[in-house]
Structure formats: C-alpha cells, structure tokens
C-alpha cells in the first residue's frame, strides 16, 4: 500500500508485529503487522471467519500469539503477570459479539457490575454513574429488565454501557452493527464516534458492515487469510487498486476473496463415498 509510511505513527496504543496464531493446525494469522493509533477509530474488517474476534482476544490477552508480539500501551500483553494483565484489562472495554451480559443480573446490575467489582464507590454514586451510561445508550428506561427480556440489539447497547462503565482508555467493538435496526444503527454509529471524541477514547471496530464502518472510522485494515491485505483511510480504500480489497469493500461475491472455507475439490468430494 502506498500510504504505509504515513502509518508509522510514533506512539500507537496497540501495536502488533509479526503476529502468528493458528487454531486446530490451521493458521489464522500469519505475519500480521498493525498499529492502532491513540484517539482514533480504527476498523478491522474482513470476511467472516478470518479471525477478527480472535484478534481482539489476542489484544485482550485471552489468547497468546504463537509468534510475534502484541503491545498495548507499551506493554507486551503475553508477558504480563496476571495482576498486570488484569490492571490493563480494567482500562480496556470490550463489546462482545453476543453481548455477554450476565443473565442472572438486571440491566442495571450488569452495568454496575464492573463498578462494584473494581471500586468502592458508595451506592448512590454507582447509581448515578450507571444511569449516565444507560442514558448514553438510550436505555435508561430499561434498567429493571433482565437480559432475557431484551432484544439482541438492546443487549448490545447495554453491553456497550457496561464496557464504558469504568471509563476505559480503549474500547473494542466486536460486530457492533449486526442486529441493529436502521434507527438504532444510526444512533450507534454516532454514539461510537461521540464516545471516542468526547471521552478521548481509542476505538477498535471489528466488522464486516462496510458502509457503516467506513462512515465512522479514521483508518481501516482489511484482513484476509491471515494477512493484512489492505489498509488506509476509508477514502483511500475506496479507490484502491487491489482486487482483494475492492471486492470486499464493494461486496462483490466473486473475486480473489474466497466465499468457501478451505475444502477439497467439490466434485471429488461428492464422489468420494468412503470418507
């Protein structure tokens, strides 16, 4: 890519070098380098199953790279002691693809959970903080509901309120847009931008919703088959000359990015009856 030099940002919040990781013998990442600059919204895009969620787990220290390094705020995540890793995680919010709300707690208690676990704030102050976070995602009225009474889109927004409860330095959004109706989609897009700019956060969005993601991100990485295949600002990527990236950004079904999970030849597979 022509714009790589501009990316060699002096002090990125997250910096990944030569990352290799495989699952069940299949390489998921094979030499990935990327930087997440501070204070910006960075998107990581790629087809389903390329390992976007896996990448977030590597950044959060839930998985360890086989080779290469993941640095967050200057610290190498895989080398941290447990205490240091937990201290780092308090400063990272993560919005899970499924929401991952605690099903035995109400919406209110879910958002209050990180505050109660990590602070000794008095209850009235926790209440105010929780209501502020819920107000930010437009669901203050839903505070008494249980997670089973929420729609998928609502659950995602509650999870977002919970992710920002401790005022982290960075938020990782795993597929924030799936399951949102057009109105809450629009609100969510604005909210992510607003939170990023107003709270001075760093945001990482993992998504395959090209249009929405392009609309709010400052920089985009496209990952496919274990490698970064394209990167740049949304405008630059729109006019890229790489066939891979063009196919993905324009949503063309056929092209260099395969639609199929690796498999033996189709006709042979159908005829091979003893397998």
């Amino acid at each position, binding site marked *: 890519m022509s714009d790589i030099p501009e990316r060699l940002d002096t002090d990125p919040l997250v910096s990944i070098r030569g990352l290799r990781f495989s699952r069940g013998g299949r390489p998921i990442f094979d030499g990935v380098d990327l930087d997440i600059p501070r204070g910006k919204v960075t998107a990581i895009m790629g087809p389903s199953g390329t390992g976007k969620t896996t990448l977030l787990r590597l950044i*959060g220290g*839930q998985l360890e790279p086989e080779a290469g390094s993941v640095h967050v705020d200057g610290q190498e995540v895989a080398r941290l002691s447990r205490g240091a890793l*937990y*201290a780092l*995680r*308090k400063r*990272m919010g*993560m919005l*899970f*693809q*499924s929401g*991952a*709300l*605690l*099903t035995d707690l109400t919406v209110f208690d879910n958002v209050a*959970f*990180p505050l109660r*676990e*990590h602070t000794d704030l008095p209850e009235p102050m926790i209440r105010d903080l929780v209501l502020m976070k819920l107000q930010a995602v437009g669901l203050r009225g839903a505070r008494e509901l249980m997670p089973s009474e929420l729609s998928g889109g609502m659950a995602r927004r509650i999870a977002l309120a*919970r992710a920002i409860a401790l005022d982290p330095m960075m938020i990782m959004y795993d597929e924030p847009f799936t399951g949102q109706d057009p109105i809450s989609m629009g609100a969510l897009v604005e909210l992510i931008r607003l939170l990023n700019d107003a709270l001075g956060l760093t945001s990482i969005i993992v998504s395959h919703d090209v249009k929405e993601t392009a609309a709010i991100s400052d920089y985009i990485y496209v990952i496919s088959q274990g490698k970064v295949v394209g990167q740049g600002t949304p405008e630059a990527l729109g006019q890229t000359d790489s066939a891979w990236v063009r196919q993905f950004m324009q949503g063309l079904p056929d092209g260099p990015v395969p639609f199929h999970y690796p498999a033996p030849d189709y006709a042979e597979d159908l005829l091979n009856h003893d397998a």
Partner: protein
Amino acid sequence: MLEFIRQLGRGGISQFAKLGRANLFMLKVLAGFPGLLRRPGLLVAQLWSVGVLSLMIIVVSGLFVGMVLGLQGYNTLVDFGAEESLGVAVALSIVRELGPVVTALLFAGRAGSALAAEIGLMKATEQLSGMEMMAVDPIHRVIAPRFLAGFISMPLLAAIFSAVGIYGGYFVGVALLGVDDGAYWSQMQAKVDLFDDILNGVIKSLVFGWVVTWIAVFEGYDAIPTSEGVSRATTRTVVYAAFAVLGLDFVLTALMFGD
C-alpha cells in the same frame, strides 16, 4: 486393531489431562476463598440456591427412607422378639450409611446438575469470557462461592436427612406398629456412639460434599461451549458423582468400620 489401541491410548491420555486440569482448577478455586471472606454476600446467595433449595427433596426423601427402614426393620426384628432395638437399627443405618450416601446422590442430581448446567451455559454464552475481559476472575467470582456453598450445604443436608429419617422410622415403628416409645429412643441413645457413628457419618458427608461439588463445577467449567457440550457435562456430573460417592463410600467404610 491398531486404530483401536491408538484410540484407547488417546482416550487414556485425555482422561489424565482432564484429571490434571481438574486439580489445577481446584487449586485456583481454593485461592479464591480469601476473597469470599470480604464478600460474604456472594456465598450467602449460593447457599440459598445450592443448599436451601435442595431442602425439600432431602426432607421428603429422608422421611420416606426412614419410614421404609422402620417397616423393614420391624418385620425382621419382630421375629426375634427384638423390636425394641428398632431405634438402634434405624439410627445406625441412617447415620452411618444412608444419610451421607443418599443425600450425596440426591444432592448430585438436584444441585450438582444445576451447577454444571449453569456454569456451562455461562461459558457457552461468553459470560465467563466477558468477566475475564472486565478483569474479574470468573473462578473467584463465580466458581469459588458455588463450590464453598456446596461443600457447606452437603453435611448440613445430610444431618437434616438423618434427623428426619429417624423420625420417619419412629412414626412407622412407634406410632403405627406399636414399638415402645421409650425403648426406641433409649436404645438409640445407648448404642449410637458420637465418634464411631455420628462423626464418621459427618466425615463421609464432608468428603462427598467436596467431591460432588468439585465434579459439578469442574464439569461445567470444562464443558464444550455449545448446547450439546453443556448437556453432556450435566449428564457426566450426575454419573461421575454417583460413581465417586459409591466408590468412596466403600473405601471410607472400610477405613472407618473395617477392624
């Protein structure tokens, strides 16, 4: 044939690996206990759902087991004219054996399966993983209070089972079949020993409580995070817990009453 041996080996190794994981898991759970002292609320909530909610099945079963013992014991003893000893027969069978064992089996079915399913589902729905990302250790926050609650509840439930069972035997023997009231209690008082009988029963129920709850929380935590994985973990909890209880019961009985 070769394939069979290979699979046998692979199965064996994976069982050992699992055993190792279970032991490491137990150490981490124990490390979570000090944190519980600071937050007794977590433990109390689990004592409620693991212990108090199991009370009903324990009381009802204890009553019926005691009544059956009263009836069977009476029918046997009356042939020898020894029906006065019914109290001792009922009390010893319940305090030494049936109390701890039947309570542990019921506890595995009622509370153990619920624990395994709950924890397994929390894993499958990424709740445990979500906690980790919020810098909260799920073993300390979720598993430790559940394990401790099971370990505390089981001996108490066994004691309740035994007490109710003895009254069940009393009801059938004394109230229905006419054994002498005073003889039922006084023979029991004379022949049941605090250390040999009651304490050994309590030790059994402590061991069973530890093992059953351990199996339940570990199976849940180690479950494959899908609906099928959770259902298999639940089944395994009950099956393994039943084997463990019956096997350990034999070992403990041999050690305690062997000579």
